[in-house]
């Protein structure tokens, strides 16, 4: 079975339509056959295209912590007491602040990756800019967007915590994602396939700013 090429099973595998034994056999084959790995990779991209259009939910913090724990380096062997005490002291004076900075750097790195994608769009494509009208709180926010509605970048200055971005249409709100502040600026990049004429920034259930987007 391991010698059998993927053929039409590539699509079945990517869709999850093989039973567990067939899927395991194909996975074993993919480890030794580059051509079939390419074929399955194409089918995986097709499934990703459909799956990505389904409802999005934010990953719970418990899950993030589980994965972080899973990928953490394995602990080394137990140390004798004097060595342990020395390491504990070093931890208190050195590693704890470093861990804080590492965590902070990681968040900054994530924000930079997101900003990089948005900057690519802003630099390469003609776009429009509209300011949000704040209702009560003091914040400054803009939305930059493609005239064909294929992407939107929402930037909020002065946000103390994450704000939700919603599309207001037909008397309904569709939640699009969170603008999470890093270094005083919150940003959300939204690749889309359609025009949205009214966006709102929400703090929980409260609308704190709205923007009308002309086309």
């Amino acid at each position, binding site marked *: 079975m391991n010698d059998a090429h993927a053929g*039409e099973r590539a*699509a*079945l*595998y990517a*869709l*999850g*339509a093989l*039973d*567990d034994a067939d*899927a395991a056999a194909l*996975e074993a084959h*993919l*480890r030794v056959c*580059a*051509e079939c*790995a*390419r074929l399955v*990779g194409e*089918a*995986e*991209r*097709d*499934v*990703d*295209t*459909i*799956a*990505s*259009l*389904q*409802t*999005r*939910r*934010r*990953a*719970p913090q418990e*899950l*993030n912590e*589980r*994965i*972080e724990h*899973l*990928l953490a380096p394995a602990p080394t062997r137990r140390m004798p007491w004097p060595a342990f005490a020395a390491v504990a002291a070093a931890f208190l004076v050195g590693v704890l602040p470093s861990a804080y900075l590492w965590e902070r750097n990681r968040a900054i790195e*994530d924000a930079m*990756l*997101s900003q*990089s*994608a948005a900057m690519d*769009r802003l630099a390469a494509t003609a776009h429009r800019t509209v300011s949000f009208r704040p209702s009560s709180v003091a914040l400054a926010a803009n939305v930059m967007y493609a005239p*064909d509605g294929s992407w939107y970048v929402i930037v909020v200055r002065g946000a103390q915590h994450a704000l939700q971005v919603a*599309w207001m*249409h037909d008397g309904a709100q*569709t*939640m*699009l994602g969170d603008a999470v502040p890093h270094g005083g600026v919150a940003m959300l*990049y939204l*690749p*889309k*396939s*359609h025009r949205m004429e009214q966006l709102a920034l929400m703090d929980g259930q409260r609308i704190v700013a709205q923007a009308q987007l002309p086309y």
Partner: protein
Amino acid sequence: MARAPGDEEALAVAFAAHERWAFARAYREYASLLYSVAYNVVRNSEDAQDCVADAIARLWRSPSAYSSERGSVRSFLVVCVRNEAISRRRRQSRRLRLEERLAAMPVEHQELDAGDPIERDRVRSAFAKLPEDQRAALALAFYEGKTHTEIASELKAPLGTIKSRISLGLRKIAGALGPDGVDR
């Protein structure tokens, strides 16, 4: 989230080399997508979290599971997590008695659950444009997580025919939904 091509390639190379930072970065970048993909199959948060964690753990223990020929790390992870979720749903389904299974069957396919109504309509429209035989086979695979054997039995068609219908239908629908298929 779109990424610069260089970033994607660097991540793929490091992911194939089983580097810890690449796994961590890939998870951070696609966490919500992976969780959502699992949730859309198993329909509860606890199981969805288990699916993501089990899939990542399995990959972390299998150094050669991903090779750069496979292409996109993101799509690879989406399929790994989705397959984990489908396997879990099948195991749970087998444990249910027949009448419970009938009651648990979705009345409508979950494309109706897409958050953004415009995107939901795109998916629905792309499915509607498929020939009936391809649409039925693909919907049973994608939305109901059935195996090709089950689909062949349900649609009363030979296995080879079902494989072809699913394969063709998947290419067509992804073509219609992908960047080149956007109808503006």
